[in-house]
């Protein structure tokens, strides 16, 4: 029937599809929740603004004070150097953990057991008092002659002690993250590399690790932010990072709250910067995969606000290809 009709008269031009433009469902629950949160937030802001004991004037006065700036620089320095040590040790331990040699595996396991099993504050104190344990550090043949003798008090400066404490501890945690990343890479990748004549270490460096990065980066970002805040523990060793810097100031002027706010503001600024950096690193290592990097928290909040207004703002779409 239909065929006969078609043959007698030309088919009508297909009509342009009509966009659906329906009235959205009302969501009163969302409105109520949003309203409540705004009321509570307004109350908090009012209290913060009007309570003179917050001392916002003092906060502004000390936010860029030279002592605070020096402390800030030290905090950044410690965070990055300890993370570099931690990541280096973490990769080494993770590769050792997957070694065919049982003694190498055991050594890696022991390290992780020791450094993950004791509080980082205790470890920091140990390093600070290392000179009491080893007054002289000898480098040389084990059980044989020493080649170099180093005086622990001169070489293990507070900075070195703090760096060792934070970095060696971080290595234990990073190794588990790296190991999870290595195990996430399909075994076929290693086989293909072997079949091409690549050796174990080259396969690890060129094939496995780069692909493990996708899994390693997000928790490492977390660890870095954690490390940023863990550096504040170092204040107990009288090392002048951000927290100890503000403590030094409030020890003389007794304005504890404003100065702790100063420190908190800087910690938040650094954390924000780190989160943004993480997004771009994740995107870099996500290349070659069809799966897109999820938008950051800020982007998600922005997106949900814009859907509320029914005008969807285009979030930069990671390139998605594939067949």
């Amino acid at each position, binding site marked *: 029937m239909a065929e006969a009709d078609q043959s007698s008269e030309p088919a009508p031009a297909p009509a342009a599809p009509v966009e659906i433009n329906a009235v959205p469902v009302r969501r009163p629950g969302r409105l109520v929740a949003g309203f409540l949160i705004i009321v509570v937030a307004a109350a908090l802001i009012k209290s913060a603004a009007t309570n003179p004991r917050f001392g916002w004037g003092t906060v502004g006065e000390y936010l860029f004070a030279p002592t605070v700036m020096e402390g800030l620089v030290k905090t950044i320095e410690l965070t990055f150097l300890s993370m570099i040590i931690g990541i280096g040790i973490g990769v080494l331990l993770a590769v050792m953990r997957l070694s065919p040699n049982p003694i190498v595996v055991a050594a890696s396991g022991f390290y992780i057991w020791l450094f993950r099993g004791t509080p980082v504050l205790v470890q920091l104190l140990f390093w600070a008092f290392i000179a009491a344990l080893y007054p002289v550090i000898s480098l040389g043949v084990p059980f044989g002659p020493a080649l170099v003798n180093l005086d622990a008090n001169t070489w293990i400066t507070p900075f070195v002690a703090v760096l060792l404490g934070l970095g060696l501890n971080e290595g234990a945690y990073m190794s588990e993250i790296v190991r999870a990343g290595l195990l996430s890479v*399909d075994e*076929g*990748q290693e*086989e*293909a*590399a*072997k*079949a*091409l*004549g*690549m*050796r*174990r270490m*080259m396969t690890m460096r*060129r*094939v496995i690790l*780069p*692909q493990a990065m996708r899994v390693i980066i997000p928790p490492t970002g977390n660890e870095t932010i954690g490390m940023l805040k863990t550096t504040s523990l170092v204040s107990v060793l009288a090392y002048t990072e951000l927290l100890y810097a503000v403590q030094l100031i409030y020890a003389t002027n007794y304005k504890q709250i404003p100065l702790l706010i100063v420190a908190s503001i800087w910690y938040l600024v650094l954390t924000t910067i780190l989160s943004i950096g993480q997004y771009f690193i994740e995107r870099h*290592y996500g*290349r*070659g*995969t*069809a799966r897109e990097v999820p938008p950051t928290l800020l982007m998600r909040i922005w997106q949900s606000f814009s859907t509320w207004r029914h005008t969807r703002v285009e979030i930069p779409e990671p390139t998605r*290809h*594939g*067949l």
Partner: protein
Amino acid sequence: MSDAMIKAEAVHKRFGRNEVLKGITLDVAPGEVMCLLGPSGSGKSTFLRCINHLEKINSGRIWVDGNLVGYRQKGDVLHEISERDVAQEREQIGMVFQRFNLFGHMTAEQNIIEAPVRVAGLKPDVARAEAKVLMDRVGLGDRLDAYPAQLSGGQQQRVAIARALAMKPKLMLFDEPTSALDPELVGEVLDVMRALAADGMTMVVVTHETGFAKEVGDTVVFMDDGVVVESGDPVSVFENPQHARTQAFLSKVL
């Protein structure tokens, strides 16, 4: 040794208590295309993986181009060879996998030049020029910059073949190269393999493509339960199988 490209003698392989290969003896001549057929679990893939020492054999010997695979014999004693020497042996043997196993973080070109540059020490621009030639040969000359995830299964497998060829192997091993492909993509991969065979490459192909085995194979080997049940030229094995197990298998797949 003899002038066989591959010579296997009484090869046994166990996984734990499970004996997967129970004495495989066969020869592959230079330029020969040998197709291994058989039900799954018959040991075809395991045998293939023994040829480039991805699996260690438990007894017997395999020689590739006259060299004992994975060992060196001094008198009556076998010595394991170092990782470096195993790697060197593998350079000569190309392998193509069922699941392609392209390096996911590298483009097609980077996949192809990785081993020539890093292992064989070729200059990157020389390797890139060769990669272009190889990609043209597998019909993907315009997809050098594509990542594996941007390619179809058939295209990925063709890149994988190009990657193996980039090391200029004497021998190519194919482990069910079309089994993970959608039916309409099988042909393009078989075409590349057909051309390779016509160029005189020595090939060992584990496959379920009886059509390919019949057309391209010089020898067809039917394996079942870890042993070679029957082997010979495709016509005699396919048209006139002698063994009941071969007949039963062929009646199902043909």
